[in-house]
């Protein structure tokens, strides 16, 4: 798979996770989100940015349970719950949001 941003080709694996993490840009995130049929808004950007910070600090993409717990700690229970997160990312908050954030597939996802 690959994405095209500003005429540039960005390689990705067969599931759509980009190959080189350094290829990521907010514009690319928009393109990936479109291919996932997700419209990026402030709430979704908040999660994507959170994941990028988490990766920067710990060098891993967290599993969904860990992500939701971490969001709850940082942003409160009204956001850190399954319902809210699955409304934002219906195909799995960790999987889809990590893909948009340009991170590897979360460890523990099969």
């Amino acid at each position: 798979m690959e994405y095209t941003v500003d005429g540039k080709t960005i390689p990705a694996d067969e599931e759509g996770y980009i190959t080189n993490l350094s290829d990521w840009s907010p514009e690319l995130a928009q393109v990936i989100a479109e291919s996932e049929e997700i419209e990026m808004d402030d709430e979704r950007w908040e999660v994507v940015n959170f994941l990028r910070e988490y990766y920067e600090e710990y060098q891993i993409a967290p599993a969904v349970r860990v992500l939701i717990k971490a969001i709850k700690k940082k942003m409160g229970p009204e956001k850190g719950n399954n319902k809210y997160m699955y409304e934002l990312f219906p195909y799995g908050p960790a999987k889809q949001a990590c893909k948009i954030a340009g991170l590897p597939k979360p460890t523990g996802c099969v």
Partner: protein
Amino acid sequence: MSDVKKFLYVNRKAPYGTIYALESLEVVLIGAAFEQDVALAFLDDGVFQLTKSQETDGIGCKNFSPTFRALGDYDVTRLYVERESLEERGLTEDDLQEIMYEDEDDDWAEKPSICVISRAEMADVMAEQDVILSF
């Protein structure tokens, strides 16, 4: 859940040069996602995995040592380090990175995950386990 088993992942190898250390950590994270009771043991050269200020640019490997600090988020809060293995390598607890977790049952107080124990105590820890996986 009544079928939670006690898993101990035993790490005996240096962090880089072989894939064992990284693979062990990946398996730990996967195992923890399935809500098992997971603890880690570090002995022999495995104690080098927890040293602070690792710098891997020169060897072209990803420095995965920051990932140990995420273990608390996965409810992995016990990292046993063998004192004799540290001493044999001229290391002390001060050479290891600080790894904390938040205790849910104690008002989220921050507590250290690393526990330096003697070789004899390590044997006791191993005796308590249902499953021991060695890397």
